[in-house]
């Protein structure tokens, strides 16, 4: 059997299978793990075999031909699909432990359907396949986010309405483009759009605008940055990493697949070194990163905080793509993988915290490092990576993107990037300080470390981010294949060094790691040779030995966590009020609801039935006379 087909069939069949045995949760999730394992393995074996394909002809005619749905193994698709399935594999392991009686979300079958569409999106060769899988993905995601909870359903509704707008624009775009090229093939449509850019600039801009809108919506780029904070926060805790890391990449994938080749091949008006549409994209990415960072800083709910952080990170990726240069795209692809790894690690460690404590508000937690040291360590390394601090993986990709932006002289975009990544320290540390450090509340005195099955994937992720940080070649080698597949001329990248377009700016990361290690050893020696330390209780020091319980309060009340950046927030309040798209969206929703009620009332009372009949006749008569 064709391996491409197997990739689709296996999750599909198991989805229906698991639906039948949904009551046996552990079995279901184990099957889920097995499927993701199989997918990862199959994808691993597919590397380099760029001629694999599969297609089916449907008995449905469009453009005078029968419609053909086809899949192809392209380096780009493989790149995303492989790392997505690897992430899924790790999450799946976590999910087995997570979905016990209390946290049972019963979403495994739907999730398998989502994985099925996930594979379809990444390997689609024609627009119809792409659209089918895209819509399947949007819809299944709705059901997982909502997962039978009322509060989640509300958030999912928000996701759904924005997501459906995206599918609508995608459908319109696909139909327009396929009419233009008289086929659904993606490669052909790129060429025909390039041609259209030379003849009818504004039409072509409209066409790719429709696609870009869809991709921006799915990746939550400005002006659609607000849905993740709701959807990520309310989805099942073990699904949030998938939502944040894999699903936010669909838009990125779409941009690389379709928009970048068009912008690269077309003759477009320039702004500085790059074309205007690309610059617009970069600006959108910049606004997203800045805005999402600011919003993340002010969140009190940790899942919301990292939802915004995800948005900001996808903003970096889009900025990297918009440079249209080898280094930028390399950085963007690299950051996609990095984001998958470190954000999965973060969300999994938070899920472990929620699993143990059942609490999502950061200020109600604290001091968990005493009880969950491994989780803390995973979280720590993940945020170091997320903050882009060497020698962990996140640094390399951010560095590449910054270098590419500077080489293309996109000055204000790169400032936005730095702003966002500096702001990242603020929110990352806020969560660290509030959740893991500080005073442990009394009610969490008895909680335990995360179970083994959760600890394993978390540890793997931690090691992965370190390994990639030290040896970037693990990722840059496959990226070479992707870039070559996209038609860029790239030299084979080295295992240790990353290159940039600027003069004398290459960076050897392994060396950097060694240097940092030596520095660590020096400082460790200084620590060791100095005097002894004594371990004392936290309150012993700053309350000068007094017991807060004697003043009718508990020590955890001293945690400074709620208004962590209050002065800073006051600076931004006017701006946040001004740009609250969320409020605009909900007021729009209310308008629709009111219109709906009014129309419904019209039908309920139906007094004017005859009058409406006459109005209809009038419309017909007037229409006929026009």
């Amino acid at each position, binding site marked *: 059997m064709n391996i491409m087909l197997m990739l689709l069939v296996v999750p599909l069949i198991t989805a229906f299978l698991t639906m039948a045995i949904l009551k046996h949760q552990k079995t279901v999730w184990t099957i889920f793990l097995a499927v993701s394992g199989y997918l990862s393995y199959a994808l691993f074996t597919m590397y380099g075999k760029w001629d694999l394909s599969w297609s089916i002809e449907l008995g449905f005619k469009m453009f005078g031909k029968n419609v053909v749905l086809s899949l192809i193994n392209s380096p780009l698709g493989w790149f995303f699909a492989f790392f997505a399935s690897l992430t899924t594999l790790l999450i799946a392991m976590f999910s087995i432990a997570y979905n016990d009686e209390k946290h049972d979300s019963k979403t495994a079958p739907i999730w398998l359907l989502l994985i099925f569409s996930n594979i379809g999106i990444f390997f689609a060769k024609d627009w119809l396949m792409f659209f089918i899988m895209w819509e399947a993905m949007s819809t299944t995601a709705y059901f997982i986010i909502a997962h039978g909870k009322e509060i989640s359903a509300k958030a999912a509704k928000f996701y759904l309405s924005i997501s459906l707008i995206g599918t609508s624009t995608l459908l319109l775009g696909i139909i327009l483009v396929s009419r233009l090229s008289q086929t659904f093939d993606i490669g052909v449509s790129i060429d025909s759009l390039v041609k259209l850019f030379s003849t009818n600039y504004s039409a072509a801009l409209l066409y790719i605008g429709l696609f870009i809108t869809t991709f921006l919506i799915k990746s939550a780029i400005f002006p659609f940055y607000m849905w993740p904070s709701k959807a990520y926060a309310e989805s099942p805790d073990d699904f949030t990493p998938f939502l944040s890391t894999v699903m936010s990449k669909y838009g990125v994938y779409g941009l690389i697949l379709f928009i970048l080749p068009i912008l690269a091949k077309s003759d477009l008006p320039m702004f500085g070194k790059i074309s205007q549409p690309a610059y617009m994209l970069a600006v959108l990415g910049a606004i997203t990163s800045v805005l999402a960072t600011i919003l993340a800083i002010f969140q009190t709910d940790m899942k919301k905080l990292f939802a915004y952080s995800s948005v900001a990170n996808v903003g970096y990726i889009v900025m990297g793509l918009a440079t249209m240069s080898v280094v930028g795209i390399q950085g963007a692809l690299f950051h996609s993988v990095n984001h998958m790894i470190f954000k999965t690690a973060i969300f999994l460690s938070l899920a472990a915290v929620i699993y143990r404590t059942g609490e999502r508000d950061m200020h109600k937690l604290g001091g968990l490092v005493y009880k969950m040291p491994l989780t803390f360590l995973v979280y720590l390394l993940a945020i170091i990576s997320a903050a882009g601090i060497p020698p962990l993986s996140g640094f390399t990709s951010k560095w590449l993107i910054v270098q590419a932006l500077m080489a293309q002289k996109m000055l204000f975009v790169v400032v936005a990037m730095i702003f966002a990544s500096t702001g990242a320290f603020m929110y990352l540390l806020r969560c660290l300080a509030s959740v893991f450090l500080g005073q442990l509340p009394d009610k969490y005195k008895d909680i335990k470390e995360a179970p083994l099955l959760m600890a394993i994937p978390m540890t793997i992720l931690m090691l992965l981010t370190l390994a990639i940080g030290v040896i970037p070649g693990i990722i840059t080698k496959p990226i070479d294949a992707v870039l070559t597949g996209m038609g860029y001329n790239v030299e084979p990248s080295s295992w240790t060094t990353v290159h940039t377009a600027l003069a004398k700016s290459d960076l050897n990361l392994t*060396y950097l790691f060694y240097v940092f290690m030596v520095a660590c050893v020096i400082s460790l020696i200084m620590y060791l040779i100095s005097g002894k330390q004594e371990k004392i209780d*936290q309150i012993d020091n700053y309350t000068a030995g007094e017991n807060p319980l004697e003043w009718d309060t508990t020590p955890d009340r001293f945690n400074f966590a709620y208004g962590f950046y209050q002065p800073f927030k006051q600076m931004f309040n006017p701006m946040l009020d001004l740009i609250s798209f969320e409020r605009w969206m909900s007021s729009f929703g209310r308008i629709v609801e009111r219109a709906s009620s009014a129309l419904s009332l019209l039908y309920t009372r139906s007094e004017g039935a005859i009058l409406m009949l006459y109005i209809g006749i009038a419309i017909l008569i007037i229409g006929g006379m026009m």
Partner: protein
Amino acid sequence: MVVINIILYSLFAILVGLIFMGIGRKVSARMHLRYGPPFYQSILDIFKLMSRKSFTHNFVMDLGMVMALAGLLGTMLYVPIAGHSAFISNSNIIVIMYLMAIGSLGMAMAVTASGNPNATIGISRALTMMLGYEIPFFIIVLGLIISNNSSSISVIAASQAGSIWNWNIWHMPLGYIAMEITLQAMMGEKPFDAMIAPAEVASGPMVELSGKYLGLGLLTHAVSIFVETGLMVNFFFGGGSNPIDFVIKQLGIYLIAVIFDNIFPRYKIEQAVKFLWIFPTGIAVVQLLLLAF
């Protein structure tokens, strides 16, 4: 060989940093019409602190302090000292910017682990301040990178070699002014010292540190002074022809900062950020536009 180099460079930086601190204290004292401690007082302090018994709350404190010092040392190793470097590298500015963050992160982690609200408030202010000064700092750096088409400090320093008139301070005076203000914030000197503010948050991050932790903290501070002034020298003062020249230039820059520290009152944190985002940033943007177009 490289390892020995690294150790020597580290010790050098620590030493220089500590002596600078001592000199700074002396200068401040003279400005206050006091006599002041001797210039090597900081070194003595270190020895005293390191040998004392100290209190810790959990392993995060130890980890954090070690990380902080290691991060700053690592950063220092990437800063070329008058063209010399512990090992062959391109001394990339972006690397330095991000490596410095390890120090902040380690320090932040260590002190928030203590659970003292004053320390946490201090950290929250410090990070806010960081966002404040990184923007003008990076815009200045960007100007340098654009004009040299390289993000390597060595290249930037080498481009100013030769006559004193090749120094960037003459080519981009606005950038220098912005950098001077920003540097004040980077070093946490007045008027930008809201995070340690002894009167409000009892010296903020340092409140719970004792003995060797405070010692490590002082060492970190010393190295950070070396790094920050070293960057300034490389950026605007030609990088120095030999290490002595380099250190003297550094000292000059540090003393300017100390003098400002002594004559200004303190900004509130949001005022500081606003100030940083308006004046130095504005000046730096003007400089950047002049360079780019």
